[in-house]
């Protein structure tokens, strides 16, 4: 799927568009729920005010992790497995360009999703105690994590196909386990901790976390390429007349 094809599919099909609206609505609700209701005086006096920005950013991250994984696994497409399987087994399209195209479109689509949620983050900036640099860092963290989840979804699709619930369980574990492991074992690369650190003015974690997630996305894309190569090789071996050619 090229970027142009992806744009046509993802921006024309209402099944693909509706999750974006749900995302915006969920973020709007989250922002409304944690919007500070006390006075500024009380907040400064007690030092206790809801971390509006952090909460909205974390909600955004969770939502994009979920959506990224689902979009990556092409859950919202009309018949995803058929498309991917046909492309791999029945066409001579180069697998590297196939994976690279999906990666590139995934990146573009993630940017669109980030843009969609960005106004909520911007509105939460001042009351959340962060500035524009921190907001941009938050978007970078969320975008990189979402891209990694997207590649995770693609990898799961390549591995398991559309067999449910096996694919969903695999996908859930593949997304949540590294996030949990990073949170508890390796906080330096945890996206959640990086977002929480932004309000403390600590931006060093952000770049590390975003970089790690981006590297993970590239690694997962490479894994997907390997899986698809294996699938194509198996398909060729099973194809009638394969032995005759040999």
């Amino acid at each position, binding site marked *: 799927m090229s970027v142009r094809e992806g744009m046509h599919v993802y921006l024309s099909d209402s099944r693909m568009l509706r999750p974006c*609206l749900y995302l915006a609505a969920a973020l709007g609700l989250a922002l409304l729920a944690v919007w500070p209701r006390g006075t500024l005086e009380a907040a*400064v006096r007690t030092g206790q005010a809801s971390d509006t920005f952090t909460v909205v950013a974390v909600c955004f991250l969770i939502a994009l992790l979920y959506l990224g994984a689902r979009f990556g696994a092409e859950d919202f497409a009309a018949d995803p497995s058929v498309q991917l399987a046909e492309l791999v087994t029945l066409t001579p399209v180069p697998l590297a360009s196939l994976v690279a195209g999906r990666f590139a479109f995934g990146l573009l689509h993630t940017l669109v999703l980030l843009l969609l949620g960005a106004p909520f983050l911007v509105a939460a900036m001042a*009351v959340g105690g962060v500035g524009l640099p921190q907001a941009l860092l938050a978007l970078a963290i969320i975008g990189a994590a979402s891209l990694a989840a997207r590649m995770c979804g693609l990898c799961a699709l390549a591995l398991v196909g559309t067999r449910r619930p096996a694919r969903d369980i695999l996908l859930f574990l593949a997304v949540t386990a590294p996030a949990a492991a990073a949170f508890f074992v390796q906080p330096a690369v945890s996206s959640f901790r990086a977002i929480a650190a932004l309000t403390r003015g600590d931006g060093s974690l952000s770049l590390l976390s975003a970089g790690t997630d981006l590297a993970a996305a590239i690694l997962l894309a490479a894994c997907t390429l390997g899986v698809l190569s294996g699938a194509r090789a198996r398909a060729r071996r099973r194809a009638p007349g394969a032995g005759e050619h040999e």
Partner: protein
Amino acid sequence: MGPRRFLACSAPALCLLALSLLAPAAPPAPSAQEKSLVRCDALVGFNGTAREGRFAPVILSVENPGARMKARISLTVTWGSLRGVPPGWTITREAVLDAGSTRRFPFVIPLPRDVRALQAAVTSQGTEVGSLHAELRPLATASRIVAGISSDLSLDSISALGGSAGSLRVVYPRVDDLPQAWAGYDGVDAVIVHDTYFQQLRADQVDALERWVVTGGVLVFSGGAAAMQHEPAGLGRLLPVRITGLTQRSGIAVAVGGGSLRWMPGRLQLAESRLVQGTVLAADGDLPLMVRHRLGRGSVWFLAFDPTAGSAAAWDGSLSMWRNILDSDRVPALGAADLSVPMEDPWIAALFAASPASFPSVPAILVFIGAYLALLVPLLVGPPGRGMKARARLLLLVVVCVCAGLAGWAVFNRLLFHPGLQTIDAARVEARSGDGLAFVTEKTAAFSASARDVEVRLGSSDPVLEAAGWRARPDLPLSEPHLFLTQAGTRTLVRGIDVPRLAARLVVFQDVVRFDVSVRVRAAGSGLEASVSNGNGKPLRGCYILVSGRAYPLGDVAAGASVQRTFAASDGLANPPGTSARSAADGAMFQDADSRRAAIFKILDEGAGQGAGPTRLVGWMDGPALAISFAGARPTGNRPGLTLVSVEAQ
């Protein structure tokens, strides 16, 4: 080639070889750093004595035996525990050190009880060319200190007075070493000028003495023959009398407190003088013997006799007289403010509670979310296969998102809520009519919705930063702030103030400033007549005259204007605004103002017992009173600071 020709050809080469062999043996040329090493010496306090818990003067002498250089002089004081104050304090100053010169740099440093060390460093072009380390603990004392300006140690008998601190020490600073900033005298209860050994004080030293008296200091000029040195020494404008000569008396009556006089027998040499200002407490005919002139919170005394000479030195009423003059342990101008958590500070709390600054309302964010979603719905739930093309949809989506982002930024980051540093400023200006000087205490609370470092610019090098005002909330981890003060000319830049997110720092500055307001109040029948002249550049707002617990409303006095008003007795409000017994009618006092004035007045004056206080003018000025600016800050709620002005009437 013969031997001679060989030698002739190879001679230059041999010379070079010999030189190259000798060169390492020659002493290396002195480096630029070694050439320009400077020697530092520091004099802390008065003759090496300073009162702990107060500010103290330091004179750093830098001797430069080398070439002329531009240097950065820095002085760092460190202390042990935090207890609400920064554990470090560094003052930096740029200077030119001429070749072969010795320069003296005066500083004023805080001297907390657990002070440890003083570190001075002189750097030039990034290289340290001189340093000094001094232990401050042995120099700090808990005793009261009286500074005697005298050519001999003749005032030691005063140390028998003691005081609440348990003991009293008399120190004798050299005239050259007298502080050039009023805060340098913070640790001193009194300064007694006996004689200056025919040395002249510099104008800034005299100015520092005068300003220190305004903050509550006691300055005593003794008489006798040595009094003839006072005016030539440059102290004439501080003297409450004009000294005209010398005379002799056989016994005089001296005021010893409580309005009583005691007889000082014996032959005495007295300074003849004419009263210029103040009150004569004891006199012999037209000859003033004891004069007191109140200046601000302090007083200037003149004794016509020399208490250290002749029969006066042996007089048994000497201690009573000194006790009367020196009164009790001086309340320090600095460090006296009750500094707790910034937002619980009464001045700040009163203003902050009345501040309109608040988070943007929930309906505002609801409207924003609703509008944004309403724009997204047609773009994201269009019927499949129909409607706009993908590229147009993407373009519109981007436009809507960008516009919403910009709107969110403008509304919630600028219009309805300011994310930057905000300040609340409250000040008190205390003056006596006609003094021309006022003691200012300015408190500024700085807070922010996001963590940030703060820079404070002072328009003058004189304001003293209140170290104790550095406390954040007790539950907040303190990052061990270290204050950096950079003095350039008359300006000072303060760095190192960190404001945590949704927390506040309270910065207190104290200074003595020119303040030209005169207030005259006199009885007129059963009422009174008041005349107020405001010679300042700022108007005085909401003024009233307080007389014996009654408030007479005067209204605003414009800058440079004079107001004269006659009040009937019935014009006075029995319960001035701010007092707990304030009646409904008294609300008129603040009808043109706001609740902030009433709140701050209540806090500042309720405990002061205004009914028993002296007749005075109370009004308000738009702040800040001192030339202080916080980089990037704006006043909370777009309101200027509030400054209470209190001028004691003549």
